[in-house]
């Protein structure tokens, strides 16, 4: 034997071992346990910190946002029988009914009753568009023209601010007085979800931006998902291994890291050049965001496809399936959960993007919800940005409310995708 004798092979008889728990051993053991405990604690601390930050942010949002779902309203009772406004069910059902009512002087009627019940100063603080709520109620229920009803009309933002203790002293006094009389209060404002952008925070709504986001997301999904999935399939299954494929792979990975505003530049120079009259349309916005989302889908798609075990492919090939059949009958169903996850991530990012849409002009003031993919629209994050820029104090709460709507939309979208993913995973 040329090797030095180890403690074990000196002689053939089994060595009797010394005691295991020597002092040195005990010290090492204690050190080890301590290190483990510390590591666990640090990890737990990190998790707790993250959760705390999340809770703080969300809590903050919720607290501010709840106020955004309310608005200051003045109570005015209008007796239509005595108002001098006439109408019958037929004319009230017509599309031009609101204009007809306006021509009949409905706004003045409202002002008249308001002055009578609240005083001239208070009546002047009813929002200029407040009469439209009355008109809407009339067209919805033509029978109302024979009765009287109490309406809660939005105030100007000045009075709303005064109600919360801001603004000139006399306005605040007025607000206090009206509030004590029970004529002025902050009420739950469901109309926020049905209206669109406006100049006064009392009259704004989020529906315009919400619909704009939905349309844009739809365009993004319809463009990015098929192109992304098919690209991923091609790159993984068919592309020959070689220099060109490598270059394409690297390019796509880099695309995913490009700052989003660059895509806006691209949208501006290419898409708007092609469709100059579709500025700020969901179609253009969707196309721009699709460019941004597609690399994410391709990357996650490729990983999902790579994760399909080769034994499945072999099994399918061996039974005589053509390459296309192998891909669509076997690989794609198994890779779909992973692809959907990547799509969720990509779409969530696209939902929250503002920069690229800035450049293609979706930062406009849109007072009515978009009618289709080609109408001017704005999206939720853009709306939040625009409102946060406003001077009027009332917009602060509305912005928080809009953020809550955005978060709920995001959660719904994710929830839907997760549901789809689980459904596919179970089936296969």
């Amino acid at each position, binding site marked *: 034997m040329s090797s030095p004798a180890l403690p074990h092979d000196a002689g053939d008889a089994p060595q009797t071992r010394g005691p295991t728990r020597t002092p040195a051993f005990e010290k090492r053991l204690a050190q080890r346990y301590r290190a483990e405990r510390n590591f666990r604690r640090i990890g737990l601390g990190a998790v707790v910190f993250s959760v705390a930050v999340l809770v703080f942010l969300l809590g903050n949002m919720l607290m501010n946002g709840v106020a955004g779902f309310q608005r200051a309203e003045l109570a005015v009772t209008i007796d239509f029988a005595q108002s001098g406004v006439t109408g019958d069910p037929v004319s009230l059902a017509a599309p031009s009914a609101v204009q007809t009512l306006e021509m009949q002087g409905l706004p003045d009627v409202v002002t008249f009753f308001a002055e009578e019940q609240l005083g001239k100063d208070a009546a002047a603080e009813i929002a200029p568009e407040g009469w439209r709520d009355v008109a809407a109620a009339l067209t919805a229920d033509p029978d109302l023209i024979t009765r009287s009803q109490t309406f809660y009309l939005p105030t100007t933002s000045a009075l709303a601010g005064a109600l919360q203790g801001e603004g000139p002293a006399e306005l605040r006094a007025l607000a206090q007085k009206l509030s004590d009389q029970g004529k002025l209060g902050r009420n739950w404002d469901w109309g926020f979800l049905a209206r669109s952008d406006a100049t006064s925070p009392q009259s704004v709504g989020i529906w315009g931006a919400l619909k704009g986001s939905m349309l844009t997301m739809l365009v993004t999904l319809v463009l990015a998902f098929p192109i992304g999935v098919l690209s991923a399939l091609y790159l993984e299954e068919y592309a020959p291994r070689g220099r060109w494929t490598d270059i394409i792979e690297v390019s796509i990975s880099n695309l995913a890291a490009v700052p989003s505003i660059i895509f806006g530049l691209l949208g501006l120079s290419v898409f708007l050049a092609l469709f100059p009259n579709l500025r700020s349309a969901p179609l253009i916005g969707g196309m721009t965001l699709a460019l941004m989302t597609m690399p994410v889908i391709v990357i996650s798609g490729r990983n999902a496809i790579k994760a399909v075990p080769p034994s499945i492919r072999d099994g399918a090939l*061996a*039974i005589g399936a*053509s390459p296309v*059949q192998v891909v669509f009958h076997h690989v794609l169903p198994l890779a779909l959960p992973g692809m959907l996850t990547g799509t969720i991530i990509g779409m969530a990012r696209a939902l929250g993007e503002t920069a690229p849409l800035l450049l293609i002009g979706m930062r406009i003031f849109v007072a009515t919800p978009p009618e289709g993919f080609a109408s001017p629209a704005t999206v939720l994050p853009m709306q939040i940005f625009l409102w946060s820029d406003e001077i009027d104090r009332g917009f602060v709460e509305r912005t928080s409310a809009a953020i809550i709507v955005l978060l709920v939309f995001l959660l719904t979208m994710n929830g839907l995708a997760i549901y789809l993913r689980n459904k596919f995973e179970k089936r296969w």
Partner: protein
Amino acid sequence: MTVIHPKMTDQSAKIRAQDVCVYYGDKKAIDHVSIDISPNYVTAFIGPSGCGKSTFLRCFNRMNDTIGAAKVTGLIELDGEDIHGSRMDVVQLRARVGMVFQKPNPFPKSIYENIAYGPRIHGLAEKKADLDVVVERSLTRAGLWDEVKDRLEDSGTALSGGQQQRLCIARAIAVDPEVILMDEPASALDPIATAKIEELIDELSGRYAIVIVTHSMQQAARVSQRTAFFHLGKMVEYGPTSEIFTNPIEERTKDYITGRYG
């Protein structure tokens, strides 16, 4: 220098290979192998690890095509037709030459779907009634029908290892092949499941030409009637199983089967 036993030459070959070489890049994995596979017998390929037997087996249904770096030269004929010829559709070839793999790989679908998939894509049966017949027949021939007939909608991956392998065999049978290639079909199974697979091979051997790669010499001795011994990419000896295992001609064969190799 390949030794072929005298009683081997007078048979009509189902698969004939002539001077087949397989290269992985620059490395030669199979070196000028020629062999006639009989339609009536089970043929076993034996040899130490890395000798190329699995690689050679995969030539018969052109599965080496799926490996980019692999190149196959030489002639391989199925019933006299060159399988690399322009008239041979590789998809059709793989329906005629089925394969069962070492690790059972049922599709993550129901048992019924696993079996029905092949006939459906090849147009052998389309209506549900026809597919039912094919499924029952294949599962019966694979010895699995009684065990699964009440749960055809269960997932194929929920079966035990041995059952999964029989499911894969049933799947291969469902497309009515002429040859079944088996690449170490029982190596991942326990002795009882292995015995069932071997019994199944026995029953199938009358109907299909079977070529089995195995690293267990005892298994080769039990199931096959013809055995070919491979070593370092060459075929060293090919003869009747009883001769190979009682009185092999080549020294290398003898060393391998008596456990003197390495």
